[in-house]
């Protein structure tokens, strides 16, 4: 079990239901497998990034959680209710990947429709609408017709509908696809503020930097399979370690070779690519027990991009793609 799953568990600490708990999701279209045994857990207040190349199955997962895609196998619950049960969506906000809002309404009317759909009491609606518009930077434009909005403004309106009424879970599918760099930064801030108020967020994205900056946990998908998942810090830990000894002699070199490949040597420092990421303590004790003065042993963090390219690129090569 990954640390993300451990952190999530089946129920949250206060006994309330998990925002998202999905196990063994399967989906195939004719004979093309889209999801193959996918597990996904999102705990309260967690921001989980769903990463993967185009066509990896990210949107299919999201749609299955919202009851728009019927699964061939596996079980999924949203806020404690089976995915597909309309009641499960009572406290969920969603920005679809392909978003469009009725061009003949103005921004506030779109939000008004959604406020009614989630059953927000009439007395709370004006405040909730203003709150949502302000959060996404549309405060002055709520009275304009959606037909006159730019694509970026429509996406902001979609974000406003997603955060309307302070849902317990917000699902964002490529939320910055139509936004400029400033808009993207604002969305990152918005996601952070959601987390600060305890909202769980599932962020679908292929923008690694975006995920790296806001997510606590990541799930990396490739062709319908989870190839890595866990806390961002754990996933990004690589198999590379930098070892500095008092004296890097042949005997020490032989020990290092026993744990992996020595990629580079600079004086008494070696860069070692371990065969097993978990072998760091064993390597340290081997060096110490053989009497090599161990000055430093540093596991190197990699960027999410390196991890992603390694995982997704490697499997692509394996398929001869």
């Amino acid at each position, binding site marked *: 079990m990954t640390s993300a799953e451990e952190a999530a568990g089946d129920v949250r600490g206060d006994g309330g239901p998990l925002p998202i708990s999905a196990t063994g999701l399967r989906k195939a279209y004719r004979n093309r497998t889209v999801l193959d045994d996918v597990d996904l857990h999102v705990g309260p207040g967690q921001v989980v990034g769903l990463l993967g190349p185009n066509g990896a199955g990210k949107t299919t997962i999201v749609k299955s959680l919202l009851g728009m895609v019927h699964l061939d196998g596996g079980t999924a619950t949203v806020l404690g209710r089976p995915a597909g049960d309309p009641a499960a969506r009572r406290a969920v906000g969603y920005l679809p990947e392909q978003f469009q809002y*009725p061009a003949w309404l103005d921004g506030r009317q779109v939000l008004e429709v959604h406020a*009614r759909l989630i059953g927000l009491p009439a007395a709370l609606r004006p405040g909730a609408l203003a709150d949502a518009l302000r959060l996404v930077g549309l405060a002055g434009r709520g009275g304009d017709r959606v037909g006159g909005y730019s694509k970026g403004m429509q996406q902001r309106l979609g974000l406003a509908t997603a955060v309307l009424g302070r849902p317990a879970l917000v*699902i964002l599918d490529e939320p910055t696809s139509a936004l400029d760099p400033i808009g993207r930064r604002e969305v990152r801030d918005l996601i952070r503020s959601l987390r600060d108020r305890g909202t769980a967020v599932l962020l679908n994205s292929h923008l690694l930097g975006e995920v790296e900056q806001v997510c606590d946990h990541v799930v990396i998908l490739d062709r319908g399979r989870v190839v890595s998942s866990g806390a961002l810090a754990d996933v990004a830990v690589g198999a590379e370690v930098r070892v500095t000894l008092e004296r890097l002699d042949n005997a020490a070199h032989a020990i290092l070779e026993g744990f992996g490949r020595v990629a580079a040597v600079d004086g008494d420092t070696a860069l070692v690519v371990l065969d097993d990421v978990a072998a760091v303590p064993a390597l340290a004790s081997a060096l110490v027990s053989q009497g090599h003065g161990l000055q430093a042993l540093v596991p190197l963090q990699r960027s999410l991009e390196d991890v992603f390219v390694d995982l997704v690129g490697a499997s692509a090569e394996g398929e001869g793609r």
Partner: protein
Amino acid sequence: MIVVRLTLREAANRKVLLVGAVISVAFLLLFWLGFAVGFNEAATEPDPLESAAAATLMTVLGLYAVQFLASFMAVLLASGAVAPEIESGRLHAVLARPLSRTSWLAQRSGTFAGLAAMYIVVMSLAILGIASGIAGYGAISPGRAVALLALEVAVLVALGTALSVRLSAIAAGVVVIALYGAAWIGGIMEIAGAVLDKDGLERIGVAVSLVIPSDALWRGASYYLQSPVYAAATSVEDGIPFAGSAAPSGLFVAWALAYAAGWWMLADRWFRRRDL
């Protein structure tokens, strides 16, 4: 009822209501003018049946045009009920809310059927009102006629909605209009079979009216729209073209109701099973 309001607003903003109203007013003016001129000429005839025939012919054919407009309105609205909403992504935002697909579909198609039926009611009242005002015209049963016409648009909306779950708006519209045309031909075959006393032809017409009951519903309605004097004096041979000369059987009306309900249930089933 939120989807009903949203759908009404959509119809209003797509100018469906405005264009429909403008054309209808123009049509009513034309009908009023034609009826007044035609009836004044017929009123000079010595035989009272002549003037009853003229009034009946003009009223029935006027409502035939109304039926035609309402049917096309129903087909055009319903054939775009689902597919364009999915393709544009408008549906996803709405269905991510605690709203079942069945409720959404019922509200949307119900609004379309309601709009078309409302159009039937308003226009029928207007046409019959003009005929009554000018000629003192009274139909056999305006209420039954309007109910049958409303059932006709309900049939078309249910069929169009079902097809719009599986086909693009244009494809669904083309199929429903083609079936509507087939029903019309079937109706002519049934009348021709009766006039020429050819059973085979009549049976084909009846079979078509079971496959797509739109024209047979119109013919049933058109019987109730005639003046009692005229209906009693004529038979199918010298009746009004495209109009019926007998009340529809209860069995047929039940079939048409089941037909509309069946297509709607199929629409719902297809829509619930579909991946969006």
